[in-house]
């Protein structure tokens, strides 16, 4: 059967469904793999009754790069650049989670300055990633890119700081087993101070534009609701879980890199709808700035990298390390057989598991609601498919 016959048949179904009156049939509409709203090559097959979503089927794998298998052929240090490409919007968090897992396996002690630098960049990454998430979310609600571009302006400044520190903007490859690759450059701290000074005003601007916007409320309130029980049962994490009211944040629950020494709060929502997810992200940015302020004020001196052999061979064993990435619980599971490369390299991507609740959230809503819900989950397809 040729392509056109295929489409003709599909169209036949549509026409029959439209003309049949009472015996109408639902229409299957493909959103993706190439579609303006899917944030990458992700395919959502929705069955529509008019505009109402009856069923949603997720098809993933279009961006599969076989990272977990490739990692079994490379040494522990060589695997760090791979983690950049898993979640390319939060490369620093992924670097960090992988390095924590490798350090646990190797039993490496990380110097305090490196810990502080790691916290600094993980939080900067959170600011950048949430800017992107909220901007594209408003875009999915139908805004003409204006909030997105304003938030990109902040993300741009964060990426500039990444660039001056490690030379790369997106795929940073900055963390190392035992610390970070380079010490902070001289101009970073003044730039960061300026950024911290400017951000409150920018956030106030976004809040003035968005928080009381009646159309945004109408589009996002009560849409894509998930209950806290269901969220826990689906093992959701990150802002999607916290929007339901569950106060779960690994930076508090299982502190790493010295997060226990910084003061910050965990914002939680009430309804578990798209708007709460958006608000949780907005509030988390403020908390990240609060952490950044403390990191800058208490940045210790000392070495930025522990003395670790470049091609280390850990003892046989396994390790699992997890961090609170901008999207949720990001974990790396490493198994060593004593060789120079991991025997097994597994990533627990928050996007994939958060996405699994999309069907639950979108059935019964309209097509437009499904798009907004997908946007509010904040998926990164590179992380889903790996």
């Amino acid at each position, binding site marked *: 059967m040729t392509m056109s016959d295929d489409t003709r048949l599909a*169209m036949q179904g549509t026409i029959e469904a439209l003309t049949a009156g009472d015996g109408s049939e639902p229409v299957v509409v493909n959103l993706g793999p190439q579609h303006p709203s899917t944030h990458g090559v992700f395919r959502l097959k929705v069955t529509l009754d008019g505009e109402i979503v009856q069923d949603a089927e997720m098809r993933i794998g279009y961006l599969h790069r076989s990272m977990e298998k490739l990692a079994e052929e490379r040494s522990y240090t060589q695997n760090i650049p791979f983690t950049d490409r898993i979640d390319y919007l939060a490369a620093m968090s992924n670097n960090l989670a992988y390095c924590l897992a490798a350090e646990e396996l190797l039993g490496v002690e990380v110097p305090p300055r490196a810990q502080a630098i790691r916290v600094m960049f993980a939080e900067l990454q959170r600011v950048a990633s949430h800017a992107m998430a909220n901007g594209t979310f408003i875009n999915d609600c139908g805004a003409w890119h204006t909030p997105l571009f304003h938030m990109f302006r902040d993300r741009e400044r964060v990426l500039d700081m990444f660039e001056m520190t490690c030379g790369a903007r997106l795929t940073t490859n900055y963390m190392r087993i035992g610390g970070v690759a380079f010490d902070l450059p001289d101009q970073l701290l003044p730039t960061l101070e300026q950024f911290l000074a400017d951000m409150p005003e920018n956030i106030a601007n976004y809040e003035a534009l968005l928080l009381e916007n009646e*159309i945004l409320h109408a589009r996002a309130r009560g849409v894509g609701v998930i209950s806290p029980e269901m969220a826990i049962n689906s093992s959701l994490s990150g802002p999607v879980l916290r929007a*339901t009211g569950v106060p779960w944040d690994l930076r508090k629950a299982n502190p790493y890199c010295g997060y226990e020494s910084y003061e910050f709060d965990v*914002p939680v929502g*009430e309804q578990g709808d798209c708007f709460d997810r958006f608000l949780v992200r907005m509030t988390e940015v403020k908390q990240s700035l609060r952490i950044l302020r403390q990191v800058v004020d208490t940045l210790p001196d000392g070495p930025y990298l522990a003395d670790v052999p470049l091609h280390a061979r850990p003892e046989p064993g396994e390790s699992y390390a997890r961090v609170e990435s901008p999207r949720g619980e990001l974990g790396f599971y490493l198994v060593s057989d004593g060789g120079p490369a991991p025997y097994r390299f597994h990533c627990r991507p928050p996007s994939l598991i958060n996405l699994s609740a999309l069907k639950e959230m979108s059935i019964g809503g309209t097509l437009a609601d499904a*798009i907004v819900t997908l946007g509010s989950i904040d998926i990164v397809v590179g992380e889903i498919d790996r």
Partner: protein
Amino acid sequence: MTDLAGLSSVLGTWYDFRDLNNLQRLITEWIADWGPDWLASIITGVLGALGILGVIGPTLLILIWVERKVIARFQQRYGPNRVGPKGLLQPVADAVKLILKEQLAPRAADKLIFFLPPVLIFIPGVLIWGVLPFGPRMSVADLNVGVLFLLAVSGTAVLVIFMAGWSSNNKYALLGAMRAVAMSISYEVPMVLALLTLVVFSGTMSINGIVQWQQQEDVIFILLFPLSAIAFFFAASAELNRTPADISEAESEIVAGYHTEYSGMRFGLFYAVELGNTLVVSAFIATFFLGGWWLWGLDQWVPSWIILLAKTGAVYFLLIWTRGTLPRLRVDQLMGFCWKALVPATLLFVVVAFVQRTLLISEGWDTTVALPIMAVFNIALSLGAIMLFARVARPAPLRRPARIRMAGADIGGLRAAREVAARREEPQLQVGGD
């Protein structure tokens, strides 16, 4: 009050560019000297049409640039700045690119019906310009039922849109076309009702007559019927498929709606007509509610068409502004807003207009005294209606505020969630609600 007869005696020379009609009248008189009458009327008709096409063509090219620049400024960008001085030639470059591109058609498309819409959509888009009064005597066709013509012609565009969506054999296009039809039919109602208010109050269906009524009474209609003006503005922006009502080509949902399958200049034609319609709707909003070519006597010194263009530009900027700022409403919300808010509001003001017209005509109230009182009354009534709608018709989920609490040290599952929720302290962030 402006003396129309006095104004006419000043006019009349061909170089008096305040009224371009003079030029046309001289040509007509010259032809009438040696030719038959029908030739004169044909030639003047063609001249008028060419004049309109000659104006809107270049205006559109400039407007594309203006819209992109203004939106870019909203978004902290520079906008087009590479092709030509300040990027002014960017629309030309885009048009050339679109013309050179391949014209694709889906293999399973209904070919004839697929090829026609990009051409047909031009007909209503250009016809509407015919009844727009650029000046006291500057409209190609000063119909005595101009309002009716306007509504009838603009209503036909939806048929063309449905042809495009249906024949494309594409589900996004079909969804977009169905949305467009449903929305156009719904939003025609408040549009008609808003214009009916003006027709009732001014007692004429001639568009130029409505402008002249505003001139004679020294008042613009937006002051007398603000809610009708707002309803007309919103309904028009819905008909134009512009954010916040661009559901029939919602990019994030159905890619490009009814013109998803059109490529090259076919898409370009849709795009051009859409922009042209935006311009003409701005012009009609300026004409109906802002006094058109009249501006408290300034129209005697400045060419009336320049005044109209300035007002059109102001309305157009408002349309760009809403587009650059607001998210999109959902289909059902848009329909609900039309039927539950705009239709009752405009209907209310039709009744108000009937009553006030009766007071003016039958009871013989003095307009200089009565009109300001009516304006104040109508503005208060509009504000009351808006506030009543905000209170009564707001959907239930929106009436509670959205709250963000701080968990602080409480970390855990459901029990911790309940503890945080039960805590007495005020939420850190609270937005929305009544």
